[in-house]
């Protein structure tokens, strides 16, 4: 299935004319992000602040220089006819100093910003990932994987833009606006007034155009989503389209959607594209007005007002550098709001409740010393439950055997709706328990309770007579091997993937496990044997081969209790037999819970549990259940009548 769900922002996605997403409490969010940044980079951030101040200061100094140049140096020289360039040289060197400072601080700021930005993102990524790993399975059940991924990609990306660009730009714009405003007021009050009126008009026009284009961007996004959905569906089913001669209908529908998108995209882009010229020409008009009025003032009575030609020149320069940052602020404001919407999702994940664990009974290596079980500091192949009793301040050891009982267990994914009712069963050490029943009967759910992927609402599950709630989750899970129906492999070599079951396993151990699981012979035939790289969840392997690897992975962990989910998918008979043999070997000597689809597995189980609608309706051995002539008998014989 194509993973192109994520729709890349349309043209001009960030910045001009985009609608603002709704963010609750943006202030608090902003504070939290800044807290994050400041916590780890206080000195860096201070440096950036100082640098921004210095940069703005030097650029204002530079703009003022035009006035000084004309008024203080050129005009006097023209008036006096002097050719002594000494003072001018001095002034230029001084300004050059300011400029150099400005350039240097701009460089320093950019450099430090890289560290802040990437460092914060690194931390954020790590926190996200570590926290995600600690979340209960329920979180992954209730959140679409695409949405989780989008936090790591899209949301982190907008946040990166915000930290590295929007915020520094906002800051420097704000400082520029203030300092330019002050300079303008000093130069000429009436002209400042004219400039401010024009800025007001500019902001008003921007708001209008943004509103119109925002509406159309929403429409564009909707149409884009529809078209992309259609495209994805058609491309996935392209062969079916061909087989059914459905090309014409597909093209017709595509044309409709394509045209709709073209219309809304055109409008959205036209409006947002007009924003730039409108602001630019309003800026020019503002410039012209100031020039005319300023010239009039300068001419009328240059001495009394104290407004000179040089002053006018500087003012006009300020006028230009005033409208630019104002435009920028309104643009950056949008991206900041968008980034905050992303930040909201990031923090939401970080605020999710981690899986809790109150267990204190631990699983330890054990050995038998003089008839007494004691803890061993090395791998002995024997396990014991280490049980600390608070009341008596004593620690007892109890050998781990693999005895599992369910006693009146009720479970529901939500408290409102129970999916398992009054489950009672007993698996003695080394026994094989098979669950049968139709899809949705609750087979997989039961196995998920044993390793506490989910916690039960009522009843007790005991493991070697210890309530599993008292066992440390990690130790509990370590004692249970799982082979899931849909195998998941990780990017890495075949060796790495098997070793996943026991991280410190030697190569020989890995090979031994592969042999046990019947995986060795196919691995040997791979181009690079055990060093063959697997990518994309083992996409380069067949379904059967992936299952064999999953079995080997469980085998190397050597757990006393095993949970197996046999695959239903059709693999060819020969491979299936190989997989089956692998599983059978793995089951030997272990307590095994198996969600069974194979006759052989069901038939030779010590106990078959027939589930229907979350209840156990029958349990017993094959012969017992056949003799009962109830549901199992029907299922079994109904099917046999066909094959016989």
């Amino acid at each position: 299935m194509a993973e192109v769900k994520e729709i890349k922002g349309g043209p001009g996605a960030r910045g001009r004319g985009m609608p603002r997403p709704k963010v609750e409490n943006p202030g608090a969010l902003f504070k939290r992000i800044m807290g994050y940044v400041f916590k780890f980079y206080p000195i860096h951030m201070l440096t950036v602040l100082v640098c921004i101040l210095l940069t703005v200061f030097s650029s204002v100094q530079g703009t003022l220089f035009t006035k000084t140049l004309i008024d203080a140096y050129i005009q006097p020289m023209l008036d006096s006819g002097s050719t002594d360039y000494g003072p001018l040289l001095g002034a230029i060197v001084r300004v050059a100093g300011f400029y150099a400072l400005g350039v240097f601080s701009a460089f320093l700021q950019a450099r430090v910003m890289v560290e802040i930005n990437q460092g914060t993102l690194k931390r954020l990524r790590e926190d996200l990932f570590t926290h995600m790993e600690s979340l209960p399975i329920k979180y992954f059940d209730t959140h679409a994987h695409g949405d989780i991924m989008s936090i790591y990609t899209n949301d982190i990306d907008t946040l990166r833009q915000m930290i590295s660009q929007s915020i520094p730009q906002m800051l420097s714009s704000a400082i520029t606006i203030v300092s330019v405003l002050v300079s303008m007021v000093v130069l000429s009050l009436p002209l400042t007034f004219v400039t401010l009126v024009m800025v007001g008009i500019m902001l008003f026009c921007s708001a209008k155009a943004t509103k119109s284009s925002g509406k159309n961007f929403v429409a564009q996004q909707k149409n884009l989503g529809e078209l992309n959905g259609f495209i994805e569906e058609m491309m996935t089913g392209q062969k079916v389209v061909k087989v059914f001669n459905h090309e014409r209908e597909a093209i017709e529908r595509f044309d409709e959607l394509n045209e709709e998108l073209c219309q809304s995209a055109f409008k959205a882009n036209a409006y947002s594209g007009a924003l730039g010229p409108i602001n630019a020409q309003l800026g020019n008009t503002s410039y012209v007005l100031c020039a005319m009025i300023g010239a009039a003032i300068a001419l009328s009575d240059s001495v009394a007002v104290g407004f000179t030609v040089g002053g006018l020149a500087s003012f006009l320069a300020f006028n230009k550098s005033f409208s630019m940052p104002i435009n920028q602020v309104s643009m950056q404001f949008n991206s900041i709001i968008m980034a905050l919407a992303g930040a909201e999702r990031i923090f939401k994940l970080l605020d999710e409740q981690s899986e809790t664990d109150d267990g204190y009974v631990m699983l330890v290596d054990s050995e038998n010393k003089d008839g007494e079980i004691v803890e061993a500091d090395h791998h002995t192949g024997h396990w014991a439950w280490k049980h600390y009793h608070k009341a008596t301040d004593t620690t007892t050891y109890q050998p781990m055997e693999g005895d599992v009982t369910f006693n009146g267990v009720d479970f529901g994914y939500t408290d409102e709706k129970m999916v398992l009712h009054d489950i009672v069963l007993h698996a003695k050490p080394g026994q094989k328990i098979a669950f049968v029943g139709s899809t949705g009967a609750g087979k997989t759910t039961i196995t998920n309770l044993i390793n506490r992927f989910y916690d039960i609402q009522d009843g007790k599950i005991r493991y070697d007579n210890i309530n599993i709630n008292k066992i440390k989750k990690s130790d509990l899970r370590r004692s249970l091997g799982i082979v899931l129906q849909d195998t998941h492999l990780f990017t890495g070599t075949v060796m790495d993937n098997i070793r996943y079951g026991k991280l410190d396993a030697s190569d020989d151990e890995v090979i031994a496990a592969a042999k046990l699981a019947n995986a060795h012979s196919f691995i040997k035939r791979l181009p690079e044997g055990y060093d063959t790289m697997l990518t994309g969840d083992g996409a380069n392997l067949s379904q059967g081969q992936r299952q064999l690897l999953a079995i080997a992975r469980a085998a190397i962990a050597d757990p006393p209790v095993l949970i197996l989910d046999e695959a239903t998918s059709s693999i060819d008979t020969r491979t299936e037999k190989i997989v089956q043999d692998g599983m059978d070997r793995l089951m030997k000597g272990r307590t095994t819970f198996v969600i069974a689809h194979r006759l052989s597995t069901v038939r030779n189980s010590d106990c078959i549990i027939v589930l229907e609608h979350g209840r156990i309706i029958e349990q017993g051995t094959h012969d017992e259940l056949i003799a009962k002539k109830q549901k199992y008998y029907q299922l079994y014989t109904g099917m046999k009548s066909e094959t016989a």
Partner: protein
Amino acid sequence: MLKTLLSQVKEYKLPSILTPVCMLGEVVCEMVIPILMARIVDIGIYGKNMEYIFETGGMMIVIAILGLLCGIGGAYFGSKASTGFAKNLRKAMFDNIQTFSFSNIDKFSTSGLVTRLTTDVTNIQNAYMMTLRMAMRAPSSMIVAMVMSFIISPRLASIYFIAVLFLSVVIMFVMNRASKYFKEVFEKYDALNESVQENVSAIRVVKAYVREDYENDKFKKAALNIYNMFVKAEMNVVYMSPLMTGTVYACILLISWFGAHMIVGGELSTGNLMSLLTYCMNILMSLMFLAVIFVMLTMAAASGKRIAEVIEEKADLVNPKDPVMEVADGSISFENVDFAYDKESDEPVLKNINLSIKSGETIGVIGGTGSAKSSLVNLISRLYDVTAGSIKVGGVDVRDYDMEVLRDQVSVVLQKNVLFSGTILDNLRWGKKDATIDECKRACEMACADEFIERMPDGYDTVIEQGGTNVSGGQRQRLCIARALLKKPKILILDDSTSAVDTATDAKIRKAFAEEIPGTTKLIIAQRISSVQNCDRIIVMDDGQINGFGSHEELLKNNNIYREVYESQTGGSGDADFDRPSA
């Protein structure tokens, strides 16, 4: 590639031309303003000529309005041209994909095609708009400003000239270096995100093996690596912007110094000096824009190449000149057929196949993975062409039929089948557009789909989600069979189409076929012996060749492979179908 892409501009040629024209107008307006400004200062102020100031000021406002009109025109035509171009590109690709044969489709991955139709087109659309609006604006703005500067003072303008040269070289150098780093870092970044994805989907494995800490360590290492690479890559570009500002500053200082000399020497007016300083920003900003456009175009080039590939791909199956428009009956014959997916391959998938199937026969096909069962049946409806030999349906070579006619009469239920979003009825009507509800119900009864459809709250109007995720595998297969039946084909091919259906229902479907459509030739590929053992004859495929062809009894007697499979399936390791939706 460029030619292929540009040929899709079509009806949007006029806006495509008008956009740069408008932008040029805007640039001219913007350039004239500083000149008029200088005149106001020189003639108006120093000449104490109030009238001149207002006259010129008025002219400047008129020009600003003209500039505004040009700017808005540029935005209007620019978005018209670029969104229209994008629309045409998408359409050209989609239309061409519809003509693709299976082997064309195999060449591109599904996700690849989706990316080309979506993200790549968006990239091109953006680049096209940017090019139309900026590619004209930036260089012309730079050239006009340059020319103006030269008119005012060639000597001072040469400072800009040197600055532009200097910056161009630096930008080229930095971009060249940085792009290499960034390409590398983004690849790693994708890999990092892939590993997150892996963890999200395999979270049960991670938790079952208590590998949270292990994964955390792995991730932290990768994150640190990304951090280092990003910092290294970005360090390459941090001095770009300060360098740019520095150059602007240097120009201002130099112009001021030499300008002062010239003014005092009477060679330059104060107003002209101010204009020159304004042009400074214009020139260097345009240069920066050019660099951005350049980056955008290189990025878009990759997208453009991918799009052109799809548009240029030629469908490798075409209708014959005078196609046969009727299929006489459902007989099939293979004569010395060889087939390979890759025409150049020495190792054919099917080797020397000879088969003769009578109209109305029910044929089973069995064999291991990779034995070319699907390839065999896919040739019948001409989803692929044979490499050698010929296949006849109804006594006529499949290559002589009109493809639509042939595929209507040879109905295939593909192994990888899909349902589309829409109601169940919509999906069924893919088989026959104007099928009545009763016809649909009949087909569903035969495919044993009626029972579960009727149990659904909305019955035949139940909406199927994209990808058919709200029906079970067995239900989906039965719907697909019903859909194929609605075509009332002369030949029906089921490619492992009942693998998720329980054996009892499977048998019921086959029984319905035998009773209701006895005249239709049926080919059934299956893994389960029980699905094929009652067929008239069974083909045993092995490694691209026919290993055996006969009835169940005959094969049991004299075909080793068949016997082996039969024994393994009935001897205790067969299916226990408790997990399948019980009938």
